[in-house]
């Protein structure tokens, strides 16, 4: 009689085991693949932003000797700054450029006019004249003198010098002409065109010309909005959390509030924008595009996040702390405010900073309340039209020129840097102050 073969031995069993082990390996590989995918997506995103954005942090400028001719600027000899503002600075800059390349005067008729236009286009056509206009406004005695100024090149020249333009295609298909390339090369070799740190990106307001545009106005708008958000969302959120965790009775109404807060945390942000539009602007008559309205809307959006974070850190404080306070005669309110809250503070701060960081990146609700203003001035007041950094990114992303692409990426880099700092601070705070019980 043959010995019965165990189902755990023999060829079939070995085959089965092999198959099971293979499927184990495959499953594990899927897990690794998923992680690799996510990490690759993150790296790709960061790479594509940084690799286009870093170029916006430097910019090419032309150094020019400009003669502020009195016959053009002040034929009547005035030195009144306000009258001088209206003078023809464009003409001054044009003349300066034409004198630098006198050979274009040898051209005839239409050809000369085209060449002159192209030559002037090498510099930032509004940035150059505005620069000397501001200088003369600040110091009218400059009229009649020759000064040395550094003005930005036009965005196309800047892009050409950064190597972003394909010059192999026929002249008609590119933004820069052969003549302009020759001029730029001459200026570049003589050292008149130089690359330098693009401080305009950080300290200028928005502009129609990419070479002049900066994030200052939207950054200030974001600061104002965040200030209002913090002022409203933090105390109200912490207060609500304390009430729900410590003082709320057990009844249907409190359950309703809890469900409400949990649900609000998952309501799409654009719906908060619609709320702001319908209630604050149309019904409440508050000013459109103002940081105060944006701040209120973002506060409503952040509030549930802060409540949830505060409640979880209040719960993490062991009940013995409260019991101890109560047993030595503290009232309930005293036990909470003197003993529980200080111990929960690091967690509350961390949660709030993370909530604020999220609010800082919000765009959609701000679009709804009209914070998409084109601003050439820094807002001074909470009720003035303003825009925010992420909205600025959205606005710039809509522009087609290549120079905008790198500026949009650069604005994103600045936004991400602020977020990294905020989140890093939150993590540092948690590591440093959080107690493990």
């Amino acid at each position, binding site marked *: 009689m043959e010995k019965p073969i165990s189902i755990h031995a023999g060829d079939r069993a070995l085959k089965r085991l092999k198959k099971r082990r293979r*499927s*184990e390996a495959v*499953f*594990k590989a*899927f*897990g690794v693949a*998923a*992680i690799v*995918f*996510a*990490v690759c*997506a*993150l790296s*790709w995103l960061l790479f*594509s*932003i940084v690799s286009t954005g870093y170029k916006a942090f430097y910019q090419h400028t032309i150094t020019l000797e400009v003669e502020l001719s009195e016959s053009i600027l002040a034929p009547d000899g005035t030195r009144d700054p306000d009258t001088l503002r209206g003078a023809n600075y464009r003409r001054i800059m044009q003349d300066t450029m034409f004198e630098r390349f006198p050979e274009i005067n040898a051209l005839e008729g239409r050809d000369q006019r085209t060449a002159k236009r192209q030559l002037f286009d090498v510099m930032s056509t509004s940035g150059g004249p505005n620069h000397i206009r501001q200088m003369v406004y600040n110091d009218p005695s400059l009229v009649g003198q020759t000064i040395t100024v550094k003005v930005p090149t036009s965005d196309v020249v800047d892009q050409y010098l950064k190597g972003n333009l394909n010059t192999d295609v026929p002249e008609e298909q590119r933004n820069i002409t052969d003549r302009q390339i020759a001029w730029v090369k001459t200026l570049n070799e003589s050292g008149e065109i130089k690359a330098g740190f693009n401080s305009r990106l950080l300290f200028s307001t928005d502009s129609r010309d990419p070479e002049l545009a900066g994030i200052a106005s939207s950054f200030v708008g974001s600061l104002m909005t965040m200030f209002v958000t913090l002022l409203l969302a933090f*105390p*109200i*959120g912490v*207060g*609500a959390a304390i*009430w*729900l965790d410590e*003082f709320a009775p057990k009844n249907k109404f409190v359950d309703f*509030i809890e469900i*409400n*807060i*949990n*649900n*609000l945390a*998952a*309501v*799409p*942000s*654009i*719906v908060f924008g*619609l*709320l702001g539009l*319908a209630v604050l602007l149309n019904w409440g008559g508050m000013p*459109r595009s103002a940081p105060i309205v944006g701040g209120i809307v973002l506060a409503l959006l952040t*509030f*549930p996040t802060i409540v949830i974070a505060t409640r979880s850190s209040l719960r993490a404080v062991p009940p013995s702390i409260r019991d101890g306070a109560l047993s030595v005669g503290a009232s*309930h*309110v005293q036990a909470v405010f003197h003993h529980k809250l200080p111990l929960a503070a690091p967690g509350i701060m961390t949660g709030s900073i993370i909530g604020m*960081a999220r609010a800082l*990146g*919000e*765009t*959609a609700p701000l*679009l*709804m309340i009209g914070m*998409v203003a084109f601003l050439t001035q820094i807002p001074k007041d909470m009720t003035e039209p303003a825009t925010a950094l*992420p*909205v600025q*990114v*959205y606005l710039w*992303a809509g522009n087609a020129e290549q120079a905008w692409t790198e500026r*949009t990426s650069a604005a994103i880099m600045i*936004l991400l840097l602020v*977020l990294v700092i905020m989140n890093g601070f939150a993590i540092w705070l948690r590591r440093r102050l959080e107690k493990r019980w």
Partner: protein
Amino acid sequence: MELSIPIYCLLIVIMGALTFVLAKRRARAVAQGADRTILAQSFHSRPNFHGLFAGGLVMLLSFNAMLAGLKIGFPGFATIGLMIAFAALAFLYARTTVRADFKARIWVERFVKSLLLICSVIAVLTTVGIVLSLVFESLRFFKEVPVLDFLTGLQWSPQTALRADQAGQSGAFGAVPIFAGTFLIMLVAISLAAPVGLMIAIYLSEYATPRVRAWVKPAIEILAGVPTVVYGYFALLTVGPTIRNFAESLGASVPTQSAIAAGSVMGVMIIPFISSLSDDVINAVPQSLRDGSLALGATKSETVKKVVFGGALPGIIGAMLLAISRAVGETMIVVMAAGTAANLTANPFEAVTTVTVQIVTLLTGDSEFDTAKTLSAFALGLVLFIITLILNVIALMIVRRYRERYD
């Protein structure tokens, strides 16, 4: 002279602080008696609470005086006078309360508790505000466009509604193409994010060593911290053109703004969302279930597939529903990368539009809110709110019930 609200508020705070100090000192003086060592009287509340009571009363009354002054439209100095008069009244009354049997602490605590209650009620007010504003504006819209036409119409072209004076240019408000587009993009996003997010959660909770977990988990969380406008720009700048170029190399033509570009980037955005929620529910499955399965000879993957997954399934479904809700309500990615043309199509390689895109395009730039065009945005908003509300409530219910199962 025009005085602004911040100045009034500063005045309120100064008067309150001053009263606090005075009342506290007085309470201490009364309690301690002449030689400052022996307790003259045994007070119910500590001096601090007398100070808080008096200061709070002064602030409350002068704040109301400010509101009254602003409401009536008093000139600046009259309002300040009114505020000081009220504050003085409150101060005189508070002086009489500094005595042993006055329960200042009880009053202060009652006030603090009611402030905290008001904070919680703001959550309810927000929801009420959302519902009322959406319903009210939508009703105005449905007066002009029947509900049924809106929900079942196949034609969406609100732009023509601007020129209502022209014959046959009343605009079409059939929202089905928009709903279809939203669904399509959501489907693309979820079919990318669900398997990836779930596998990340499984790997991190079942296979990864603590060291790997400590590095990978924060890296995945970074994805959740990136603002959506950045994802939108990434889709527009990189992913869209990449997909287009890839399709061109295969001989097909795909527009830069397509459902697949927006959907896949949105999928990347919700990966951390799914993975962290699923991670929580997988960790909540008791270790004893895993040990039992492993003891019977199952491999790790068999344990995950047949035991852990089954146990965590309700929670995972909850996570998926929350992720769907997020995908449906996501705005910036689709605004930048999905396009605005209302195509009724099931082909992810075409440009489609979504509810959120339409809300943004209908409401930005326009400041009139009486046309059917702008009101339709609120109707879309209402639909969006209802869908996400249902998804959220179901998901939260499942997650909560499930959590109780293993507690």
